[in-house]
């Protein structure tokens, strides 16, 4: 009985939990009132909806060169088809409907962001927890591995991974971007857990004889998740942006029948100075807005989930 009470106190120390309300529920309660979160959530929800239904929403096939538009395309005179009729944003450099491409592009973009973050987070969580929770040789080995991965700068690592595949495609881009994030997550998690290991509540729990797995999963991990969460929200956005970077270096998906915004942006970049900045402007805007949406939502969710911020 006494022991239980003391354990509760340790919990309270670690998470300063109030009343009996569950963490998630109280977080949600506060989130509903946060304008920042709502903005982020609305952007994200819109983005996801558009991504899911874009094939239905798109007025034209994004991959087809439309005869009507290509007639108006004379590259050497810097003429691209202007917005007209059902072609809301006009044609791209090949006389394809830009608006449809932008809509359909959301699908691949969402895929890249979500998959890359999930893979990166999972890998980093496993490695980081392993290293941070256990001292000694496991820690050393894991961190050596992470260091080796980190020792190759991230874009190069991504480049390397894309090069391992015979031909670059959307999948190789995702894997390349994801793997790059693993060591970052791992190192961050291990860093905060190291600090935790020496902190009062962990020492107290250990003194009270709480099992190691209990300490790791009930105390150290939840308390280390804050910075990791911040990182994850950034990663969701940056994986979309990194994918764009790969495209910029010529390592993106070469097939642009089902476009992705980063790919559209880097392909359109050469037209910025020639006076057709709109080809690059739209995908760039889309990336910025969506990246902002993810980050706003993640940021406020992090604040809300943080037990210390509850009042």
């Amino acid at each position, binding site marked *: 009985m006494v022991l239980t009470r003391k354990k509760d106190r340790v919990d309270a120390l670690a998470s300063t939990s109030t009343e009996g309300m569950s963490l998630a529920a109280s977080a949600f309660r506060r989130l509903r009132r946060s304008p920042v979160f709502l903005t982020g959530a609305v952007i994200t929800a819109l983005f996801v909806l558009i991504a899911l239904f874009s094939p239905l929403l798109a007025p034209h096939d994004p991959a087809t060169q439309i005869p009507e538009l290509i007639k108006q395309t004379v*590259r050497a005179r810097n003429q691209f088809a202007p917005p007209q009729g059902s072609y809301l944003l006009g044609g791209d450099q090949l006389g394809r409907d830009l608006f449809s491409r932008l809509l359909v592009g959301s699908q691949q973009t969402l895929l890249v962001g979500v998959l890359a973050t999930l893979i990166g987070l999972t890998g980093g969580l496993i490695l980081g927890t392993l290293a941070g929770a256990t001292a000694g040789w496991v820690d050393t080995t894991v961190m050596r591995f992470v260091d080796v991965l980190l020792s190759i700068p991230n874009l190069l690592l991504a480049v390397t991974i894309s090069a391992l595949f015979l031909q670059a495609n959307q999948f190789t881009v995702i894997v390349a971007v994801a793997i790059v994030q693993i060591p970052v997550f791992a190192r961050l998690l291990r860093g905060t857990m190291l600090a935790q290991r020496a902190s009062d509540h962990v020492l107290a729990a250990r003194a009270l004889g709480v099992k190691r797995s209990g300490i790791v999963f009930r105390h150290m991990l939840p308390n280390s998740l804050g910075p990791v969460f911040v990182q994850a929200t950034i990663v969701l956005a940056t994986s979309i942006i990194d994918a764009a970077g790969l495209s910029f270096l010529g390592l993106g998906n070469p097939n642009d029948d089902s476009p992705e915004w980063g790919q559209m942006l880097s392909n359109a970049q050469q037209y910025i100075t020639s006076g057709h900045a709109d080809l690059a402007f739209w995908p760039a805007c889309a990336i910025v807005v969506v990246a902002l949406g993810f980050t706003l939502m993640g940021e406020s969710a992090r604040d809300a989930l943080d037990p210390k911020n509850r009042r």
Partner: protein
Amino acid sequence: MQMDRKRRWVAAAGTAGAVLLVVSGCAQSERGSGGDNGATLNFGQASAPKLFDPFYATDGETFRITEQMFDNLVEFKTGTSQVEPGLATDWQPSDGGKTWSFNLRKNVKFTDGTAMDATAVCKNFERMYNQKGAGTSNAVSQYWNDNFGGFADKKQPSLYAGCEVKSPTRMALKLTKASSKMPDILGLASWAIQSPTAMDKYHANDVKAEGDSFVYPDYATKHPTGTGPFKFGKYDQANGTVELVRNDNYWGEKPKLAKIVFKIYKDTAGTRQALQAGEIDGYDLPQPQDYQSLRDQGNKLLEREPFNIMYLGIDQKNNPKLRDLKVRQAIAYAINRPQLVKSQYPDKAVVAKEMLPPSIAGFNPNVPEYNYDPNKAKQLLKEAGAEGLTVNFYWPSEVTRPYLPSPRDQFTAMKGDLEKVGIKVVEKSEPWNGGYLDDVEGHKPDLFLMGWNGDFNNADNFFSQFFNTPTNRFYAAASPWGASLSERVKQLDATADKAAREQGYQELNGQIQKDYLPAVPIVSAPSYIAVKDNIKGLVPSPLSNEKFELVEKSGS
């Protein structure tokens, strides 16, 4: 402890300051205070030059620089592909085209003071022929390998037989057989006449293969010495600039510019912005989408007439259906070439009729043509029993050429056309030097995009590239005409009579288009040099070998 730390900081700062002082004591400004009389031309480079010995050079970015420092026996008349006197004032072939005698210009000196005479010229040819080891590699002396063949080591037959000094101003070049390339070939940058003294002094032939690459001697990297209007200044690698200064003892008209600075950029977009920002006065090969805005901003686009050809190659090796002429014709009918050319190429680009651009001697204006006709294409496929044909179509990334300005876009247009007639396209893209060229030569694709830019006005320069062997990139060996086509190309090159040769090339062109069709010729495109409005006297050459000696820069 607090004090301690502060003291440590002070000590560290003091030490750093002292070191800085000591270093700056030894550091002296090494600026020359040379009085410039004349303007500096800043010209954008798309990549770093390989070296400055044109005999070992292979790429246009290097040749652009060496052209300014060196002269050849024969030169090309400004703005044309016609031969005119250079260091030689006149020449005569004899012995059925196997001996060429040259009278040399008098009183010409290399910039190191060595006299340019018959001995010096022959030393140049002997030097080329006597390459050893790494120097004979195709990657090192590529132009010689391609055009003259073997070396003194006799491993390969050579066109070169010897060089004879007849008097200080008269020498003769001996060949093993007649060649359609003479004498034009001697005007190409690689056959520049260089100072034998400087070549000896800086060990010009000392090329070594080491690891994955070649190490070039000091001559090629630091001391190129010629007779040209400009001489080598310096190559500042840390900053990516090459400087040439005026050769005040130049034998021809004195250049107006005091200095040329070549600035190295990484891509055309960056170079284009540098021009707009005023950092350079001009650059070569702007992209089609920039033409209009360049003009709008008051720049000039100097046009080179089309001297190249882009084609859709058909490799007959893997897909037996492609060995059927009807299928190849169907592909030709399926591609909407006029639309492709109009929407993606400059105004002056022309839809290609055959595997030569119109300006090359031997071009045949009356060959069978395959005008866009998707229905005819479908019908031909049906006749050949090739409905539902699937092709592996490769296209290159990381490359732009005047004839292939953005390969992805050219590919996408053709792919759409092929799909419209029911051909299924499996696409693959690879970097130009990162697998694409390997795979094309290795017969991996069924269809591929490729092109050729002429070095000089010579049909063999194109045909020997395309049809050198029956196992060429079209794998013509799979068709009965493959072997004879290669033979015919070799015969025509060795035909000494010019008229007969051109007649032969015309007939061959007709035959290729009518009966062979190893590839679908797509386009011959002009290319441009963009320069600021105040740059005068730069005349574009179809051979892309512009000389800057007459360039003037006003208002600066």
